[in-house]
């Protein structure tokens, strides 16, 4: 066992886990509030990657080159635009079917996912796209010799820092503000909240918007880091993030982040020490084992039968 590889893969796993966690938040919040999976969420993440590239190009064309300014502007613009996509998904695929059978919005969300994928494929092309990665710097830790070091890129640090900041803000918003209070009330008993005058439709929209904005943070940062994406990245990443949400206990906000980190670490350490090809098998086996012992996930609470 190589200590450097262990540390390196732990760092990589934390970064990957932060990305999963940021996306998983969207799944878990939507599930918490309407009890359904948002199948279009992975594609919202994919859209964020494209929007990042578009805004990068636009800002460069406008003559803005200072990296911090560009990054902040791109991040904010992408979040705003992606939030609009999240809102539209709810408006088109969920709200008209609110009083319909439980499976109907599921189907319409899958439709939404297909529409988003193909809309991007038609408008942006099916090829793999790329942006220049402009955060090229890196740190080397524990360096002893040319082959023994742990490398952390600045982009990786940025991902973890932004994930922590994003989660912190979201946590404060949900736990500490009037809006979050209304969200929690709607999550616990939507009808009762409505009977007290809370605009439940607005709260549900806000949850979709917040989820999409968090996915946008992930999409933007991953694009800054890797600089490569295509119209299909939303699918696999979405499935992984959904797995993370289930692992942590779907409906639980800290659970989503914890699930993301655990999944990221598991994948990364497994591929570092055992085999890269089977990393997904390992990740999903982990999910199976966790669900056998804790059917509602690590931090999830057992479903209470609603009257």
């Amino acid at each position, binding site marked *: 066992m190589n200590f450097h590889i262990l540390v390196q893969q732990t760092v990589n796993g934390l970064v990957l886990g932060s990305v999963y966690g940021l996306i998983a938040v969207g799944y878990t919040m939507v599930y918490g509030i309407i009890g359904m999976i948002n199948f279009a969420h992975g594609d919202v993440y994919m859209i964020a990657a494209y929007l990042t590239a578009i805004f990068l190009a636009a800002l460069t064309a406008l003559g803005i080159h200072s990296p911090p300014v560009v990054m902040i502007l791109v991040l904010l613009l992408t979040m705003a635009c992606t939030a609009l996509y999240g809102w539209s998904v709810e408006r088109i695929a969920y709200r008209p079917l609110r009083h319909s059978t439980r499976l109907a919005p599921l189907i319409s969300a899958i439709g939404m996912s297909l529409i988003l994928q193909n809309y991007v494929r038609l408008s942006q092309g099916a090829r793999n796209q790329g942006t220049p990665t402009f955060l090229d710097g890196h740190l080397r830790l524990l360096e002893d010799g040319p082959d023994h070091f742990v490398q952390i890129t600045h982009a990786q640090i940025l991902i973890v820092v932004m994930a922590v900041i994003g989660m912190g*803000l979201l946590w*404060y*918003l949900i736990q*500490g*503000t*009037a*809006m*979050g*209070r*209304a969200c*929690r*009330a709607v999550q*616990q*008993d939507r*009808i*009762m*909240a*409505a*009977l*007290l*005058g*809370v*605009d*439940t*439709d*607005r709260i549900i929209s*806000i949850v979709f918007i*917040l989820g999409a904005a968090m996915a946008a943070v992930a999409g933007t940062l991953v694009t800054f880091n890797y600089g490569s994406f295509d119209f299909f990245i939303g699918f696999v990443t979405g499935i992984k993030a959904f797995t993370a949400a289930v692992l942590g206990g779907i409906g639980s906000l800290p659970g989503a982040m914890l699930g993301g980190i655990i999944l990221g670490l598991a994948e990364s350490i497994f591929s570092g020490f055992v085999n890269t090809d089977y990393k997904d098998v390992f990740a999903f086996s982990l999910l199976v084992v966790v669900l056998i012992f804790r059917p509602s996930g690590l931090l999830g609470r057992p479903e209470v039968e609603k*009257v």
Partner: protein
Amino acid sequence: MSALLTVRELTMRFGGVVALSGVGFEVAPGSVTALIGPNGAGKTTVFNCVTGFYRASGGEILLNTPEGRRVDLIEILGGPFRAGDWWSPRAFGRRLYYKMFGGAALAARAGVVRTFQNIRLFKEMTALENLLVAQRARVDNAIVSGLCATRAYRAAEAEAVERAWYWLDFFRLGDEGNRLAGELAYGRQRRLEIARAMCAAPRLLCLDEPAAGLNPQETAELSDWILALRRGHGVTVCLIEHDMRLVMEISDHVVVLDHGQVIAAGRPQAVRDDPVVLEAYLGAPGEEEGW
């Protein structure tokens, strides 16, 4: 003085089952009106229709606010189009608006707030938070002002918290404010639910069996509270209750339902001596032990 709530020809069908047919009654402002009747008479269904929990199949439920506004509590839930709507653009527009933006929340905003027989608190929130959620009109629900904690936001929050504590103290829940609602004892949960309803600033407070499961002492306190709410806070109360002593003690007007119809209405004493009512309750005329 015109009625606060006017219910006319209220009909509710569930598929082929007619739960209510032609129910009509009025609730005078500032009164305590009791809805009584045997089990399955349709009392809770009336409540559900009035408070926006169900959309009634037919009839009229009108809330006349003191400001002279008149709210149609069936229309705001977004009912289906009717023949008349196609001739009048105004009626059509209203129908369309409520179809898009209507819902139970509008009933609460018009001033009709209820409690449930099987208490529906937000069990995983503290008692205080339960009361804050109900103050939708008072607090600032926006994301940005919440995150930045603007001055207006903080002022609104402080006012809402103060009001919540007022109602907690009113119902002697002052020590329980920061405990989770689901952890409270049963009787306290009942009080908390009424306190929460009061935080939503109701004109018409609908209590569905508020005394169910309470001991005699708690029931006596409850009746004092209901009278105090009416006297001191200008609330009109409409309640469903099986405890006849409580009904006789606090209500000004009693409406008796049986098989989805109003069989008697009037002052408590008059209703109590009505042979039709006795028959509905006891199944045979002439036996008065049940009361």
